[in-house]
């Protein structure tokens, strides 16, 4: 185990190379190239703002009250950017090993490299989109605070990275043997989007009377809820997760990473034969 971690670390350069290659391929044939990293979340934000902000008037649920600096639009953007990171990783996770079959069957590198590369690329894309976020922060006069920048942001990124990596390990290895995973992922992607308080403030579920208690507990057990609450908390201190939600997030990430990695190692022999 320790030697595996070491050899992954020694091959960290390979992760960088794969990430660079994928980004290059992604932007190569498009005229706007890098701009897409910013345009996509912008377009999504536009759609959701129209539907939820204007039509359903979700503004009232924004943590910190109606006139919290930044308003619903900043809330949307600050949730959508990290969500895109998670959702692209989730979408590509099943193919993380299959699409690289040729490299895997001819090159001796720790196989963990490939899922790590998928998650890291999502993360790099997320960083690329930060200018958009900052633009909105300035335009909407959003305000951050020390606690948000020094605690919530790093913690959110770390926990999200760990959780996403765990999920990717699991899906990538299982999908080689059982191809149903690709289908499940599509549904999962949709469900988690609405279940994780990305565009709908969690208060609208947790403070509402129309949901039974057990449903609220279930809602809070989703590790992604805490992760996105942390992302929001950078700009909306009122959205900072409580102890229980924070616990499920960190615990969920650790469990996901452990289970995912264990499965990955367990299935490695069969996966290699199958590729």
């Amino acid at each position, binding site marked *: 185990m320790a030697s595996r971690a070491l050899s992954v670390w020694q091959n960290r350069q*390979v992760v960088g*190379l794969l990430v660079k*290659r994928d980004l290059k*391929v992604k932007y190569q044939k498009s005229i706007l190239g890098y701009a897409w990293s910013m345009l996509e979340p912008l377009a999504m934000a536009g759609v959701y703002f129209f539907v939820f902000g204007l039509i359903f008037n979700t503004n009232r649920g924004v943590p910190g009250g109606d006139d919290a600096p930044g308003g619903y639009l900043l809330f949307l953007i600050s949730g959508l950017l990290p969500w895109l990171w998670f959702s692209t990783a989730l979408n590509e996770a099943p193919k993380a090993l299959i699409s690289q079959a040729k490299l895997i*069957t001819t*090159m001796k590198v720790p196989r963990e490299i490939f899922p790590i590369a998928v998650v890291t690329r999502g993360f790099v894309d997320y960083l690329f989109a930060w200018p958009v976020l900052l633009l909105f922060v300035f335009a909407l006069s959003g305000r951050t605070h020390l606690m948000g920048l020094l605690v919530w942001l790093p913690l959110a990124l770390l926990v999200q990275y760990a959780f996403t990596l765990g999920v990717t390990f699991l899906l990538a290895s299982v999908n080689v043997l059982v191809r149903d995973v690709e289908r499940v992922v599509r549904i999962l992607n949709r469900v988690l989007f609405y279940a994780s308080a990305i565009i709908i403030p969690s208060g609208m579920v947790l403070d509402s009377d129309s949901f039974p208690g057990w449903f609220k507990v279930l809602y809070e057990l989703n590790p992604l809820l805490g992760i996105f609450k942390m992302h929001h908390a950078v700009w909306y201190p009122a959205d900072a997760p409580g102890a229980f939600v924070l616990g499920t997030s960190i615990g969920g990430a650790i469990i996901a990473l452990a289970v995912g990695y264990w499965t990955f190692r*367990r299935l490695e022999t069969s996966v290699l034969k199958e590729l």
Partner: protein
Amino acid sequence: MAEPVIEAENLGIRFAVNRRRKRSLREMFIHGTKRDPNPTGKDFWPLRNVSFSVSQGECVGIVGKNGTGKSTLLKMIAGVLIPDEGTVTVRGKVAPLLELRAGFNDQLTGRENVHLVGSLHGMTPEMIEEKFEEIIDFANLRDGYIDMPVRHYSSGMKVRLGFALISQLQHPVMLVDEVLAVGDKAFRKKCYEAIGRMLESNRTMVLVSHNEGDLKRFCDRGLYIKDGSLALDADIETSLQAYNDDTKAEAEAAKKKAAAKKKAAEEKKAAERQKAEQEKPADGGAGKDGAGDKGEEDGGKAA
């Protein structure tokens, strides 16, 4: 003498024959791949009980029929397959010439691919920069092609570029799988020279090939693999001889079998003809009775 560079001990790998229906997902998670719930099930061992060691500077050829696990063995040495039994130890880095186009991304240009795959195999950027001209020269690409996406290359060009790149690796162990069969005559000659040079610099090589000329040219030792196990570990001439003898014997057996089959078929045909001839008068008789159509139909069914 120093420790052997490649050491295989009791190597074995198992493939499940009908994997789709074999084990449920639940079982796979509970037992993993190590403990098979039905060890007596239909497992197929492409290789089993293979032990050998290769010391530095040796060139070992692996011979055997198609599907006897030669490539599988090479992949296990390369570390891209994990054996189910036994261990394989390789001391030093491995340059795998298993499938030369591997790793090239179709969307990227030749130049980008050389940098990418070179670094994936552990070359430093300076090393690649230094060898770049040599690689292009060796690959003999037409002018300007190096800056075109690899998807526009012919398959020969891809392979040439791949070989040119991999052969620049300075790793002490080389694994070569049937790659000498590709390329035109001029390129093959270059490959031979490159491999000769590598062997001179005291590097270890394992070569899988069906070309006796290649094998005799480079190898001093031969492993003959037969039905998934190591049948002979001797010098290359002896191994090739054993392989050829077996092939010949098999061909003769097959010929005999075919002859027997043919004979049986002929006998059967003759018997049928005889039978038909016996039956014919009966059919004719039925026709005379005024139920000709029906009779013929019945006859057809009976046949």
